[in-house]
């Protein structure tokens, strides 16, 4: 890649930051060039982000329909999955899945709610609502 070929087309997922790329200059030497972004990166990053957002939105709909608890929504919102949430909280995976049942989530102790909240950087109040 020549330094004038380094993509500068912008990449909204970089949030205005630029990244360092290596490219060949006129003298044939490779050096760092700041890139404002490549569409290819934007596409694959968006793809991953959108997939996570889709999971969160899907869970939110099911919370409204009373099919799952707000916990599942917040887990996806925090870009986690059950294995990761299990590692962070130290709870068994089956126990977390059980807490996805709205009736059981309702009755969780303050201590458990706090544990979930800490894991995802939320207050207990935020954790109880899916919005």
């Amino acid at each position, binding site marked *: *890649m020549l330094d004038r070929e380094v993509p500068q087309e912008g990449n*909204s*997922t*970089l*949030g*205005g*930051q*630029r*990244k*360092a*790329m*290596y*490219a*060949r200059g006129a003298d044939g*030497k*490779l*050096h*760092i060039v*700041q890139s404002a972004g*490549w*569409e*290819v*990166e934007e*596409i*694959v*990053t*968006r*793809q*991953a*982000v959108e*997939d*996570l957002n889709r999971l969160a939105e899907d869970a939110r709909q099911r919370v409204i329909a009373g099919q799952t608890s707000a916990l599942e929504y917040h887990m996806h919102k925090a*870009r*986690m*999955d059950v294995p*990761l949430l299990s*590692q*962070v909280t130290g709870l068994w995976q089956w126990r977390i899945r059980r807490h996805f049942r709205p009736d059981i989530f309702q009755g969780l102790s303050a201590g458990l709610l706090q544990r979930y909240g800490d894991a995802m*950087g939320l207050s207990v109040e935020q954790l109880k609502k899916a919005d």
Partner: protein
Amino acid sequence: MEFQHSHASHCESGVMSSMLRHLGLPISEAMAFGLSSALSFAYLPIIKINGLPLVAYRMPPKFIIKGLQKPLGLKMRFETFRSPEAGEQRLNELLDAGQLVGMQTSVFWLPYMPEDLRFHFNAHNVLAYGRDAASGDYLLSDPVVETTVTCAPADLRRARFAKGVLAPKGLLYYPEGKPSEPDWAKVLPKAIKKTTRILLDSPIPIIGVRGIRRLANAIERLDAQGKPAAAKMFIGQVVRMQEEIGTGGGGFRFIYAAFLQEAAERLARPALNELSETLVDIGDEWREFALSTARMIRDREPLNPSKLADKLRAIADREQVFFRDLRRAA
């Protein structure tokens, strides 16, 4: 001496390059990467990230930090902590003593990172060089960010004590003693040979050139599964590892090419310059692979995993020839 930040493409080589320069041994990021033989390829179907297999274009985390110790006669000290309080206290002590401290963190909890890139990736390296006296915020040099940044103690604590795959456990590292100018004629050929061994002679078929072919086979199989959405997630993940996660482009092939140019100069061996050019061409082929993949994800061309698999096989063949030539030249 006042700390000087520099923008790098990869976090670990960037941190080590800044740290070494601060210690009086100016070494480029590319040199830090190549001298520690960090280039690789690995397709790890057993390790899943959000249900997708891990693909890596470099050696595992900490490989660069550890790999630089021997050639530079440097002793790095690593400390992990059981409690966040102890980890934070130790960081403060070291900073008060004027030490530069490297840290392993989770990208997800670093507030200055772009929102869309904050995934649960636990092996991001940043350097702390001080604390703001008024606010108590940490002054950080994150190599993949253009300028220095600050981070509130609570956020940094979360980032350092994140859990999950590759959990940092508050890892801190700092040098003991000073690095010395190495005997380039000795250390460079050794580092290059080690890289060719990693890419060519791995005993397990998922590492090195064989790993690229293994990945090609896995992508080929997506055709038969008849699940286009899942196939797109799979190939998208490969490209993210190659381009999105600070690799300097082409899955670290360009940064290694920059290293080979430096090595050619230090050793006065023009053959390495020619090899560097070949590697730039191979890096361009990786970028073409990424471009095709992205077009297929966006349906600008029909989804065709076999075509991507063939492209990967062509790259694997070229890399095999390249690393054999490199071995001879070293």
